[in-house]
C-alpha cells in the first residue's frame, strides 16, 4: 500500500500528541489529549484497513478509557482537601538525567526501527489459511472468526481477564459485590434530556454491532462497550439508576459471559471433538449466543470498573477515605 499525505500528516501528529499528552501541565488537559489521541489512532486504524480495531479503539481505547481517567481524576480531586500542585518535572538537576535517559530511549527506538527496516516486505502470514478455513468457522468476518473460533481460546481467556478484573476491583474495595449506589447529586437537566434520547439509540447501535459482528466490523466488545457507555453516562449524570437486583443475580451477570463461553467450550468437547471445537452446524448459533451473553457481561463489568475507579463503589460505611483493614 502506498503512502498518502494523510498518513504523512497523521503519523507525526500522533507522536506529537502522545508527547504533549504526557507533559501537559494540567492532568485534565492530558486526559482530553488522550481521548483525542485515541480518536486519531482509530483514524489510523482505518487507514490501516482495520475497521474492527478502529471501532474498538474509539469505543473502548479512547472513550471508555478516557472516561475511566476522567472519573478517577474527578474522584481524586473531589477528595483532595488541599490541592497539591503536581510536579510534572522531577526535581532540580534532573536535566542531565533527562538527557541521558532520552539518549537511551532514542537508541532503543532506533534499534527497534532499524530492525523494522530489515523485515521482509511481503509476508502473507496466515491470511490464506484463514481465508480457506473461514467457511468452516461459522462467520464471515475473518477477524471475528479468528477471535471467536480459530483463536477462541485467547478470547475466552480475555473474557476471563475482564471477569478477573471485576473480581479484583471488588476485592480491592473489600466489599461484597453489591448494587452500585449513586450518591445524591444534582443531575443536569440537559444531560437527562440528552440521555433520554441517547439511551435507546445506543442500545440499538449496540445490538446492531452485535448482530453485524458475524460478517462486518463489530462484535461483543464493541457492543458491550456501547452499552457500558450508556451506563457510565447515567452514572456520571447522576441519573437515578441502580442495579437493584439480588446479589447473586449481579454476580450471575458478571459471570455469564465468561462462564457461558467456558461451559460451551467444555460442552462441545467429547470424543473426537476438542475443546472449543464447535460442531459446524451449530457454530454460527453458538458464536452468537456467546457474543450475546458476553455483551451483557461486558457492559456490566465495564460500568462496574468505571464505578470502581471513580468512587462510585462504596467501600465501607464511611467515605472519608480512611483505610480499612489491617495496617501493617
Amino acid at each position, binding site marked *: 500500500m502506498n503512502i498518502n499525505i494523510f498518513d504523512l500528516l497523521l503519523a507525526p501528529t500522533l507522536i506529537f500528541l502522545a508527547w504533549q499528552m504526557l507533559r501537559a501541565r494540567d492532568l485534565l488537559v492530558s486526559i482530553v489529549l488522550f481521548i483525542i489521541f485515541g480518536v486519531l489512532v482509530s483514524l489510523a486504524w482505518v487507514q490501516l484497513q482495520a475497521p474492527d480495531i478502529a471501532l474498538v479503539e474509539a469505543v473502548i481505547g479512547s472513550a471508555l478509557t478516557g472516561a475511566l481517567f476522567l472519573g478517577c481524576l474527578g474522584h481524586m480531586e473531589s477528595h483532595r482537601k488541599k490541592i497539591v500542585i503536581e510536579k510534572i518535572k522531577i526535581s532540580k538537576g534532573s536535566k542531565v538525567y533527562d538527557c541521558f535517559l532520552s539518549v537511551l530511549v532514542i537508541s532503543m527506538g532506533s534499534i527497534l526501527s532499524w530492525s523494522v527496516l530489515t523485515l521482509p516486505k511481503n509476508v502473507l502470514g496466515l*491470511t490464506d489459511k484463514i481465508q480457506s478455513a473461514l467457511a468452516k468457522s461459522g462467520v464471515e468476518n475473518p477477524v471475528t472468526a479468528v477471535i471467536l473460533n480459530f483463536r477462541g481460546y485467547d478470547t475466552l481467556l480475555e473474557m476471563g481477564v475482564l471477569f478477573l478484573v471485576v473480581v479484583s476491583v471488588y476485592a*480491592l474495595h473489600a466489599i461484597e459485590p453489591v448494587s452500585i449506589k449513586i450518591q445524591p447529586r444534582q443531575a443536569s437537566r440537559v444531560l437527562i434530556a440528552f440521555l433520554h434520547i441517547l439511551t435507546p439509540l445506543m442500545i440499538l447501535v449496540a445490538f446492531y454491532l452485535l448482530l453485524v459482528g458475524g460478517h462486518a466490523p463489530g462484535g461483543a466488545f464493541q457492543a458491550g462497550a456501547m452499552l457500558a457507555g450508556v451506563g457510565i453516562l447515567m452514572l456520571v449524570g447522576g441519573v437515578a439508576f441502580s442495579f437493584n437486583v439480588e446479589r447473586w443475580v449481579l454476580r450471575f451477570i458478571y459471570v455469564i459471559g465468561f462462564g457461558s463461553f467456558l461451559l460451551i467450550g467444555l460442552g462441545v468437547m467429547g470424543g473426537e471433538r476438542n475443546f472449543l471445537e464447535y460442531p459446524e452446524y451449530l457454530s454460527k448459533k453458538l458464536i452468537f449466543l456467546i457474543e450475546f451473553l458476553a455483551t451483557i457481561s461486558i457492559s456490566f463489568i465495564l460500568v462496574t470498573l468505571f464505578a470502581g475507579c471513580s468512587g462510585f463503589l462504596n467501600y465501607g460505611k464511611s467515605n472519608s477515605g480512611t483505610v480499612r483493614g489491617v495496617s501493617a
Partner: protein
Amino acid sequence: MSTAILYSITGIIIFTVGLRGLVIYTHFLRKVLAINVMGTGIFMFLIALANRNSNGMPDPIPHAMVLTGIVVAVSATAFILALVVRLHAATGHTSFEAIHNDDRGAKL
C-alpha cells in the same frame, strides 16, 4: 516507504515516548497514561505490519491480537486506577515519591 513501515515506526516512537514518560513522570495517572500510550504504540506496530500483504488483504491475526490487547489494556487501566484511587484515599498522595517522602523512616 510503505504505510506499514511508516506506521510501524510511528508505533515504535510512540512506544518510546510512553516509556520515557513512564520513567520520568511521577503522577500515577501520568504513569497509567504512559502505559496506555506504550500499548497503543505496540498495537500500531502490529496492525501496521499486518498490512504488508501484496493481495491487499490485511492479516486478521494481528487484528485479533490487538483486539484482545485493547481489552486487556482497558482492564488493566481500570484495575490500576482503582488501586490508585484507594491509595490516594489512604494516603492523600498520588505518586510513589510523595508517599515515600511522607513516610520517610517508616518501612515501605
